[in-house]
């Protein structure tokens, strides 16, 4: 089985109106090259589910997002994501704003093919008020009401990993998987970009198979995209690009900032993109973040 495809092939599998989950966390291990390919496409009316960073910001800026299911959108060292912020403040964005843990529970429920998971999280907050679709349920075992976090099934998940093979075996060696395994399991189709494409034999060595966190049956397509997470990080291979993120956020302060950013960094091939951000060698030298 050969699951190798191009980024364009991945996007061609998506449809207007789909629910798309995006892996990673804030400015970390986001499938940015796939997101850029999505930005180049005519796709629209998407429901996006993410622990959001610039992936969400850019999709908002480009008007791709009909509804956002999120707990936060942030670049961490730049707390406020400017394009997400602008989209919200314009009143144009439909949102399901929930707790980080509720988002995880919703993905878990979808992965387990159950309709909901009960939790106390969200009770007493405006998460309930602004999401009337989220219901409270009784427990047959106690006298309490519980928030029934509904399953969040995804039509597709977009993920970036350290390395993968053509069978769809994916490895994350970085210190944090984030929730990528749950995104993969919650999705009908999972498309993964990888920094390094390896032979199956790679996973037979030493403890390499330990760092494989979902079965290859959960992976639909694999795209080989070195530095495909840039400007987000892919620890331990490279850190996030502070300079690029600053340029990106600064662009939002200009009247036609997004158009300029788009022209320079999206309206080109990924090969050109990598050249414009300094080249693969420079990206690989980006230091890991220190907190």
């Amino acid at each position, binding site marked *: 089985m050969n699951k190798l495809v191009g980024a364009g092939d991945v996007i061609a599998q998506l449809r207007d109106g789909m629910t798309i989950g995006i892996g990673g966390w804030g400015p970390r291990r986001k499938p940015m090259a796939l997101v850029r390919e999505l930005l180049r496409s005519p796709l629209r009316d998407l429901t996006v589910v993410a622990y959001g960073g610039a992936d969400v910001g850019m999709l908002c800026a480009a008007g791709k997002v009909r509804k956002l299911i999120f707990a936060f959108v942030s670049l961490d060292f730049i707390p406020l994501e400017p394009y997400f912020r602008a989209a*919200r403040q314009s009143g144009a964005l439909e949102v399901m704003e929930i707790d980080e843990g509720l988002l995880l529970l919703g993905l878990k429920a979808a992965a387990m093919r159950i309709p909901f998971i009960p939790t106390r*999280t*969200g009770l007493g907050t405006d998460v309930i008020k602004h999401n009337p679709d989220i219901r409270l349920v009784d427990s047959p075992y106690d006298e309490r009401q519980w928030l029934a976090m509904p399953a969040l099934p995804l039509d597709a998940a977009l993920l970036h990993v350290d390395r993968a093979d053509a069978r769809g075996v994916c490895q994350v060696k970085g210190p944090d998987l984030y929730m990528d395994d749950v995104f993969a399991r919650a999705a009908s189709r999972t498309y993964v970009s990888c920094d390094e494409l390896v032979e199956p034999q790679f996973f037979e060595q030493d403890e390499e198979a330990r760092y494989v966190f979902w079965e290859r049956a959960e992976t639909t397509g694999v795209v080989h995209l070195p530095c495909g997470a840039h400007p987000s990080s892919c620890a331990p291979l490279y850190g996030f690009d502070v300079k690029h993120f600053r340029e990106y956020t600064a662009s939002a302060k200009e009247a036609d900032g997004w158009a300029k950013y788009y022209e320079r960094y999206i309206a080109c091939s990924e090969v050109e993109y990598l050249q414009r951000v300094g080249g693969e060698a420079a990206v690989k030298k980006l230091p890991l973040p220190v907190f």
Partner: protein
Amino acid sequence: MTDTALVDAIICAASEAWRNDGEVLATGIGIVPRLAASLAKLTCNPDLMMTDSEAWMVAEPVPLGPRGDYVMRRESHMGFARIFDNVWGGKRHAMVGPTQMDRYGQANISMIGTDYRKPKVQMLGVRGFPGNSFNHANSFFIPNHGTKVFVAGEVDMVASVGYNPARLARGWRLDDIDIRLVLTNLCVMDFGGPDHQLQLRSLHAGVTLEQVQQATGFPLHVPASVPSTPAPTAEQLALLARLDPHGLRAGVFGA
């Protein structure tokens, strides 16, 4: 009082939040909370668990900023997914910085404005506030004590639950909520007043009771005696110098 002296006093007062917690995960988001948690672990509660703010639990607090030769003392893997195992289990005490807080202790970092569909100011989103606030102990640090933060009504988006009986779901009690200290640039407070009213615990050097009340959009409970926030000890200052080798805490109130 210099900014540095003030922030040091606040950090030391904030570190007290974890004194009697036993073995819980101490999470401090932002410079002051993180230094406070770090200081607590090195002084009043060595059993605390802490992370490197990324994916590892560490045996000793990691200094702020660029680390030079410092090597993290890893204790266990602690990726973000496992943080939720910890949160849902309740063995955590976080200190965070909300943008608004109301008389109930309800807090907001999501958005400002009266129209949720079209915020005046969009901020981060609710992040983990709903889960944190109903699963484990929470304290707060607010660097700009004023009526825009401590609002007269409810916060614009209740991200964090507080002692508000009207919002309790059936079968739950206010005792299921556990807000500890609220520290600001003016004072230290908690919700130990009558009926969980916000009350003064101590005033920072040079701050008056009237100043605090005027900067708070709702009535505070004032106990018979309100001490001054203690000045840091020499030991605490020495530890802070080690934990913040680049002196980042000096900029907490703006340069």
